[in-house]
């Protein structure tokens, strides 16, 4: 008898997704909800069912191997942007030299669409991460024409490879060469802009152990790494090494001697040196942990991640795997969404679909600009800040975004109301104010509403008109504007 029960119990347990019985985290979310909140841009009606079916471990494993995930659902919504997003800098320059806003709309729209609809959510998060780590500001000079290709060829394919690979791609990226002025650097008087930010921001960190002399020597090593000009036809705006610009004398960098006569290879040697440096491992470990765990990531976690990063030869996916296996990840405190993350999470939660891509591009660029988080629009090379202090002053813009969203139409995109209603149906939620508000609270926050939260929200909803639809819309707006939904 006891044996039968035990067998049944073990059958039942085996049928459950892994992690389903894991204890809830300190903030009241279970592990699955925590993983969804941290690895993705937020819950959607589809993901709500899909993640439950997979369970937390399989969900994370899938996200760590993005290329195995079918992403064909993205083809249709992205199609209208393709002509611009697939174009070369030369073609964009020829067509849009005096119409840059069109490119900004496509870059912003395309980035937002991908964050909304891609199944490869972790990959999209890493695109955001590296777009900021290797920040290029599209407001400078001609970078907006170059950024489209950089996004396509430098950042997206390399976000989950090795750090040396994405670092090398960035160093030769025309967008970076223009943004940090290396394209103009020659041996007569080397430009230090790229060299300094390469050391300070991309690799070793400001206190990573390099000197002003190292900055100057690195600048000399990269002289000649340049770009073909606009007059060079189909080759315009592509990487070019200019021998005549290069300082070919010997250099000493971080104590290592780069012998004379190395030519273009000097820069590669510097990148080898920097990519393998322990200070670089620390920089990456700190920033990844800040992105996924906490503004001030635990020191022990950073040390472990950095050590693993060095052992793996700078493998980014293995860094993420180590991170998601760490207790600190699961015990993480609330992490404030950046405005871009917030807006996308609202659009995902209410199943927004783009109906007019140009209008949507304008709407979303305008909104994100007003919130201070338009992609690729941070002027300084350090990228958008990743701590709550930089974003918590903008609550009013988030509250207004929540109000706009429940209107169902944000200019070029609308809520798929049938999909939201089916979510209620699938979960057996009667279409009444209190049950819907409480269900949506759990859906949006990944945990049940507390009785206080529920009380305030239901009361507000009930006082918002006589119709149950108006009450529900108001309740959802309040939930989207509530503090708990500001965090990941």
């Amino acid at each position, binding site marked *: 008898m006891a044996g039968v029960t035990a067998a049944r119990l073990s059958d039942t347990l085996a049928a459950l997704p892994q992690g389903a019985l894991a204890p809830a985290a300190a903030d009241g979310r279970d592990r699955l909800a925590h993983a969804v909140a941290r690895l993705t841009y937020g819950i959607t009606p589809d993901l709500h069912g899909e993640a439950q079916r997979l369970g937390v471990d399989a969900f994370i494993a899938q996200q760590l191997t993005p290329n195995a995930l079918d992403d064909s659902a993205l083809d249709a919504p992205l199609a209208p942007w393709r002509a611009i997003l697939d174009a070369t800098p030369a073609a964009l320059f020829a067509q849009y030299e005096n119409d840059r806003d069109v490119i900004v709309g496509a870059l912003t729209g395309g980035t937002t669409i991908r964050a909304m609809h891609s199944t490869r959510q972790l990959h999209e998060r890493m695109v955001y991460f590296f777009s900021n780590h290797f920040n290029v500001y599209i407001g400078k000079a001609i970078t907006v024409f170059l950024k489209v290709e950089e996004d396509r060829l430098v950042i997206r394919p390399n976000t989950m490879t090795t750090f040396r690979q994405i670092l090398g791609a960035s160093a030769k990226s025309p967008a970076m060469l223009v943004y940090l002025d290396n394209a103009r650097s020659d041996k007569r*008087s080397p430009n230090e802009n790229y060299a300094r930010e390469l050391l300070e921001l991309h690799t070793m960190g400001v206190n990573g152990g390099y000197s002003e002399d190292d900055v100057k020597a690195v600048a000399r090593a990269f002289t000649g790494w340049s770009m073909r000009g606009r007059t060079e036809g189909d080759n315009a705006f592509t990487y070019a090494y200019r021998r005549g610009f290069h300082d070919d004398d010997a250099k000493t960098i971080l104590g290592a001697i780069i012998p004379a006569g190395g030519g273009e290879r000097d820069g590669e040697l510097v990148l080898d040196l920097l990519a393998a440096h322990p200070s670089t491992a620390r920089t990456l470990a700190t920033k990844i942990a800040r992105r996924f765990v906490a503004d001030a990531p635990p020191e022990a976690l950073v040390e472990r991640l950095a050590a693993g990063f060095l052992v793996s030869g700078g493998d980014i996916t293995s860094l993420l795997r180590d991170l998601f296996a760490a207790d600190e990840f699961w015990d993480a405190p609330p992490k404030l969404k950046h405005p871009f993350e917030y807006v996308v999470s609202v659009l995902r939660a209410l199943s927004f679909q783009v109906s007019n891509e140009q209008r949507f591009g304008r709407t979303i660029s305008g909104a994100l600009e007003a919130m201070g988080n338009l992609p690729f629009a941070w002027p300084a090379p350090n990228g958008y800040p990743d701590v709550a*202090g930089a974003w918590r002053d903008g609550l*009013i813009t988030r*509250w*207004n975004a929540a109000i706009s969203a429940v209107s169902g139409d944000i200019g070029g995109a609308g809520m798929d*109301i049938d999909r939201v209603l089916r979510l209620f149906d699938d979960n057996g939620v009667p279409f009444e104010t209190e049950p819907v508000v409480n269900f949506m609270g759990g859906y949006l926050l990944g945990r049940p509403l507390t009785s206080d939260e529920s009380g305030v929200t239901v009361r507000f909803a009930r006082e918002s008109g006589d119709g149950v639809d108006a009450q529900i819309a108001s309740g959802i707006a309040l939930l989207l504007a509530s*503090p708990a939904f500001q965090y990941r």
Partner: protein
Amino acid sequence: MTQTLSRRALLRGLTAAAGAAAAQSALPAWMPRYAFAPLNQAARGDVLISIFLRGGADSLNMVVPHGEDAYYAARPRLAIARPDATGADARALDIDGFFGLHPALAPLLPIMQAGGLAAVHAAGSPHDTRSHFEAMDFMERGTPGEYHIGTGWIGRHLAATQTPGESPVRAIGFGTAAQAALRGAVTPVALKSIVDYHLGGDAAAGARMLDALNQLYALDSGTLIESAQATNSAIETLARVGYDSYRPQNNATYLENDFAAALRQTAALIRADVGLEAACIDLGGWDTHVQQGGATGMQARLMGQLASGLASFHADMGDSMRAVSVVVLSEFGRRLHENSGAGTDHGHGGAMWVMSGSLTRGGVLGRWPGLDQAALDRGEDLAITTDYRDVLAELLTLRLGSTAVSEIFPNHAPTGVGVFRG
């Protein structure tokens, strides 16, 4: 599906009147009136406006040392011609026989000559970093070389003078996030536009939603409680300013750019007497590694924005400049020698500017170290002879009624610089 929710019905929801302005009181607050200052807003001193030129402004081409041959030798392509040069399209505007203003700063010359504006040359932060981010961080926190004090110099001043029942808009940071200098016990308001600072929807629905949000944010386990309270109070206060009908005075006209808009809004807030004590405004784009330009070009355009904004504000404020002090900072100056890209790399000493009704005199202040090789910092950059904290300390003490300078600039004993009058 048995549910009755329709697209139309959801659309009707909360936001039938989305975009409508909140109800406003009859008289805009900026209008001249015989105000009885509320007890909790007793004037403590000048309103402080701190402007930050992000990127490391090349002060050598702004306040041009035209008496230095070394300046011309180091900058064959970028130097601004001497005031008496022949054949040059544009020349420095002489200030005192040794220094001259860049021609794009022309709107500032009359203010300078009337004693309302001074540049303290060879000033800056003594820490030797050439990193933008480190240098800005040290400068705004007011603690060069120190990493543990998280608050900013203005934030500490406001905290030291905090009393119960303060105005919710004591400190405004223009932009989407308040500047690091404002961080402190007082939660500053980050503001892009006064007229947009309200909740969408009709006023009654907005008020109910704010009330509900207040209750929810009071339950927050994270770090948003104070921001939500500050936002709520600021919505109420800014609605009284009546900015959309604000008209600058004394025929002042502001250009259409973010910098000018921030100054125009600052002027309106000062006139509205809503308790503003400090405002931070950024002007970015000064990191001129290539194609900096000389008398015209990239940096000249930025200088044009700076000068026009300051001059418009000065005119708009008129007599009220008596109670206003503006300070302009940048994280560092730039290298004396131009580089191969016709730009300049990161340097050390720069210039800070002060515009106030209470200067000892206008013109160029500070001790000029010269540009001889031996006088340069590291043999290549303008040296610093005035610690920027000395100027700010004098401003805080003489103009803002501070008695807490030793807390605002810890580990620094300020030296009098004779820039401000008491």
